[in-house]
C-alpha cells in the first residue's frame, strides 16, 4: 500500500508559560495521502493552528510521532508550503519580489524556479501586476499572490490556516472557490483549517472535527459527491452537501454546548 505523505501517531502538544501549562492537542492520529484534501474544523482555541505548526516543524511535538513520507519529521525531505491567515505580502516589495521571497531565502533563484513563477503568474491572472506593489491589488488578488508564493516552492503538502478569513463575505466565497479549484486541479495534498463549514465541505475529501481544548479528534467525516467533475462551486447545490453540513454542524454544536446553554 502507498505510504501516506503525512502520518500523525498519538500526537500531544503542551504549551508552557510561567503561569500554567496548556495541553493544546491530545492523542491526534490521522493520515494524509497524496492528492488528498483534509479540512479541520473545531471551536476556536482547540489547537488547529498548533496542529499546522507541528506539521510545518515550527514547534517540536511533546509526545507521539509525526512521519513525513515515512520518515520522522526532522530528517524528511518533504517540502511543506504554509499559507497563513493574512496574505502577509511585504508592502515594500513588488508582487514579483514577494513571490520570489521563498526562492531567495532558499537560494533557488535559478531559471527553472523562476519559470515556475512566471507560469503561475500567467495562469492565475497576475502577470500584468507583477511590477505592482501589494497595496495596489484587491484582497482576492493578494490572496492569489500569497498562494503563488507558496506554490513556487512546489510543496508536497500545503497547509492553509483560515486563509480566507480576512476577506469580506462576497470576496471570500469567490476566492475560496477560486483557490480551491487551483489546488484541486494541481492535485496538491492539503490540510485546511477553517471556520466555514461550507468551505470545508466544498473542498475536502475528509473533514476532521476537533473537540474543544484539549483538541482531540471527535469524528472524521469522509466527503464524497455523486456528481462528475466535482468543483468547490458545483457541489454546493447538491443534496449531499446539506447532509454533510448538518452532520458536521451537529458534531460541532455538541462541542459548543456550554457556550450555547
Amino acid at each position, binding site marked *: 500500500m502507498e505510504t501516506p505523505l503525512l502520518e500523525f501517531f498519538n500526537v500531544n502538544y503542551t504549551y508552557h508559560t510561567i503561569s500554567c501549562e496548556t495541553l493544546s492537542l491530545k492523542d491526534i492520529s490521522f493520515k494524509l495521502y497524496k492528492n488528498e484534501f483534509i479540512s479541520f474544523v473545531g471551536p476556536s482555541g482547540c489547537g488547529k493552528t498548533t496542529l499546522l505548526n507541528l506539521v510545518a516543524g515550527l514547534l517540536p511535538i511533546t509526545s507521539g510521532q509525526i512521519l513525513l513520507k515515512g520518515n520522522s519529521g526532522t530528517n524528511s525531505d518533504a517540502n511543506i508550503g504554509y499559507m497563513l*491567515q493574512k496574505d502577509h505580502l*511585504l508592502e515594500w516589495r513588488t508582487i514579483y519580489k514577494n513571490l520570489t521571497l521563498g526562492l531567495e531565502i532558499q537560494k533557488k533563484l535559478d531559471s527553472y524556479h523562476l519559470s515556475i513563477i512566471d507560469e503561475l503568474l500567467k495562469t492565475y491572472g497576475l502577470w500584468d501586476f507583477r511590477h505592482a*506593489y501589494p497595496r495596489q491589488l484587491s484582497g482576492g488578488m493578494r490572496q492569489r499572490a500569497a498562494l503563488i508564493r507558496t506554490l513556487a516552492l512546489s510543496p508536497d503538502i500545503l497547509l492553509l490556516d483560515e486563509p480566507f478569513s480576512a476577506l469580506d463575505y462576497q470576496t471570500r466565497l469567490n476566492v475560496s472557490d477560486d483557490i480551491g479549484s487551483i489546488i484541486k486541479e494541481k492535485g496538491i495534498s492539503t490540510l485546511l483549517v477553517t471556520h466555514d463549514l461550507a468551505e470545508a465541505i466544498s473542498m475536502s475529501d475528509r473533514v476532521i472535527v476537533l473537540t474543544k481544548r484539549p483538541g482531540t479528534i471527535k469524528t472524521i467525516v469522509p466527503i464524497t459527491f455523486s456528481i462528475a467533475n466535482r468543483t468547490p462551486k458545483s457541489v454546493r447545490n447538491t443534496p449531499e452537501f446539506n447532509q454533510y453540513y448538518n452532520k458536521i454542524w451537529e458534531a460541532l454544536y455538541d462541542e459548543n454546548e456550554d457556550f450555547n446553554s
Partner: protein
Amino acid sequence: MKTKISTPDVPSLEQQQYVKKIHRNHLLIRIYQILLFAGFLTLWEVSARQHWINDFIFCCPSKLAQTLITMTSDGSLFHHIGITLYETLIGFVIVIIGSLLIATLFWWNETLSKVLEPYLVILNALPKSALAPVLIVWLGANKTTIIVCACSVAIFGSILNIYTGFTNVDSDKVKLIETLHGNRFQCLRLVVLPSNVPNILSIMKVNIGLCLVGVVIGEFLAAREGLGYLIIYGSQTFKMSHVLLSILILCVIAMLLYLILQQLEKKLIEYF
C-alpha cells in the same frame, strides 16, 4: 439616470471655488506668520531705540544685522557654523549606526537585552548635561569630547526606541520567513529591518536635534570654536549680539536639518 463617479476633466465651479478658498487660507496663514515676525522685530528695535529696554543687555535687530555682516565678511561665522555642523553630523552618524547595531544585537540575544535594558533606561533618563563635565575630565577639552557628548544625549533613547520597533514587528511576518525556512539573519534582513524603516526615520528626526543639543552643551564647556562657544564667550564678554545671533543660527540649523530628514522620510515612506 447614470451617475458619473470619475472626476470630470474640467472641475466644477464648486470645486474651483473650494480649491481657491483653501489656497487663500494657506496664503493668509503665511502672511500672518510673516507679519508676526516682522512685528516682533519692529517692536524690539523700537523698544531699544526708545530706551524702553536696555539695548546693551537685550541687543536689537539692527545690531544683530551689523554683527552678521562683520562676521560673514571676515568668515568667522562660517567657521563656527561649520565646526558645530561637523560635530553634530559626526555625532548623528555614530548614534544611528551605533544604535542600529546595538538594537540588532539585543534583538538577536534576548537575554542580553533583558540584562542591559534597566541600565539603558537609567542612562537615558539621566540629564546628559551632568555627564559633560565628567567627559571633559576624562577625555580632555577637544572635539572628541564634544562628539561623545552629542552621542551621549541621543544614543540611549535611540537604542531603546529602535529595539522596541524591532520587537513590535508582526510575529506572523516572522513566522512567514520561518515557514519558508529562513534563518534569523534573513528574518532581520527581509522583514525586521525593512518594516522598521519608517520608525528608524522618525527616530533619526528626533536624534539630529538631540545631537545638536549635545554639541552645544559640549561646546559650552570644552570648546574654543563653534556656535556654543560663541554663545558662552559672548555672554562672558557682554557681546550680546554674538549670543543672540548664534542662537538664531542654531534655530535655523535645527530647522534645516529637520526639514532635510523630513524630506528624506517623505521620499522613502511611500515604499514602506
